[in-house]
């Protein structure tokens, strides 16, 4: 059963999640080591692999405010964390969806160590025996989630575009031939 491993307040900034001094590190395979780098003990646990995949970070309003740095989403994705927050900043939310980091919009009552259970459309806090409803993510982004992220979704769109171009050139070729 997943546990709450970190409880934070409102306006957790991208500087908090992924400090600017590590921004020269860009690859999703390398960013996880700096997740919450200034929360030394939590960062230590993450890097010792003491936090099981699927563990939950709980926060208040406006999680991920500040910079557009995608490292803030990729570093959490690398540790397979889920973020449950009352609200998210726009860019962080889009980055999370684009990269397939699991984010959940919900106002939940939980402390570090609480055990959670995912139900259909709801989240059950087993420790406190409380159930919370979840808010849906922006509908505009659903097709990106369904495609498994923006890289795959864009690739799909690119292939559609290329095949349309190919069909067009085939068709125009036929017309030219018939004119001859």
């Amino acid at each position, binding site marked *: 059963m997943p546990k709450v491993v970190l409880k934070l307040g*409102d*306006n957790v*900034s991208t*500087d*908090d999640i992924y*400090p*600017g*001094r590590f*921004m*020269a*590190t*860009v*690859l999703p395979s390398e960013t996880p080591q700096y997740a919450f780098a*200034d929360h030394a003990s939590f960062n230590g646990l993450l890097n010792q692999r003491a936090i099981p995949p699927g563990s939950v970070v709980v926060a208040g*309003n*406006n999680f991920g*405010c*500040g*910079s*557009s*740095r*995608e*490292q803030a*989403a990729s570093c959490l994705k690398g540790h397979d964390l889920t973020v449950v927050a009352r*609200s998210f*900043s*726009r*860019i962080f939310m*889009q*980055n999370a969806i*684009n*990269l397939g980091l699991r984010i959940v919009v919900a106002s939940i009552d939980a402390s570090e160590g609480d055990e959670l259970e995912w139900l259909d459309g709801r989240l059950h806090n087993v420790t406190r025996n409380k159930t919370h409803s979840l808010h849906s993510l*922006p*509908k*505009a*982004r659903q*097709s*990106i989630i369904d495609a498994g*992220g*923006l*890289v795959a*979704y*864009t*690739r799909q*769109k*690119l*292939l559609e*575009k*290329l095949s349309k171009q190919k069909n067009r050139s085939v068709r125009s070729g036929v017309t030219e031939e018939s004119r001859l």
Partner: protein
Amino acid sequence: MAMTIAEKILARAAGLPSVAVGDVVEANVDLAMSHENAALVINQFVEVYRDTGVEPRVWDPSRIAIVLDHRVPAESSKTATNQKKIREFVHKQAIGKFHDIRGDVGGICHQVLPECGYVRPGYLVVGTDSHTTTHGALGALAFGIGATEMASVWTLGTLLNVEVPPTIKVVVHGEFPPGVYPKDLILHLIGLLSAEGANFKVIEFHGVTVRNMSTSGRLVLCNMAVEAGATAGIVPADKETIRYLIGHAGVSSHDIEVITPDPDAYYVQTIDIDVSKLPPQIACPHSVDNVIPIFSMEGRRVDQVVVGSCTNGRLEDLEVVARLVRGHKVARNVRLLVFPASWRIYRDALSKGYIGTIVEAGGVVMNPGCGCCLGVHQGALGNGEVALSTTNRNFKGRMGNPEAEVYLCSPAVAAASALTGVITDPRTGG
């Protein structure tokens, strides 16, 4: 249907007669900007093309701008290698709007784009930087996106699945009292709205105060709109915008199309502000919306004063600083660091004597770039130190040290305080 500026721009970009709040559209991008994080965009762009059998090609190299500004000159071998990778990509893809680390064309992306005339009213501009909102000062719809989203734009030329955001109308009247500036206005507004008060919304700036404001001032307003969570900030283009674009940015009048909101457009909220009695404002640690009038903070010790960034590193800002420090000395135990926003500004400030005046007073004028704003190099803070800065963020750890504090203010407050060593009201002096 009546539309706001954001709605008009998105409608045109999507090839539709009109759009309404909540509509989901695919929008053609006019300008796509990145800085050093282009290194990550390149990585994701190559990923998109993986196994397609097609050679990666950006959709339109003339619509991509890349400006190296965040860590210039490179502070580490890692950054230098990323910058090298970007140069190679720029060459291979024939990207023309590339601004390397150079004294002729270099600078901070949010200054270089306006001054080179890359941004026009009505454009849809996206950038892999949250302060891309800055370009709304020229009547464009401009906002930040992540690196993967940019890789998608580089591939397709469009922004997929954009939800049309609602707009907040901010109407500003009154004349700024001496010593009070657009920076004080935007800090005050962020304090009113809170750090998330404009989340997923656009802010349109109206009113006589904005009409009378220079483009430099408007760039400050739109730059910091994102600190209230706004998707974008927009000042409707007008005579001043045209004056700036033709006179400063070399744009031909034929290439300027002014888009204004319809008089009966729908606004989700309207906020009226009178600046005639506004005192200088300070944003206290560790949140940009923790804004108070200067009186409550006067006398607070400062160790480092920073003037610059995409918010306040423009010629008007350096002029204010030079005027206040002329003939005085920066206080002992204070480091005054000045980062002009572009090399063009640096050269102008040099010829007007501002640079000499600031250096004479004990200030250190650094090379144009983001400098210490994001905590990578060129002015990290020691444990327990206090910075007073004209930049746009004061989050914990922002200037490279979570054990330090950052206060935000106007260039006038920064200069007055650099002389006294404590937070000082520029209207009364030390």
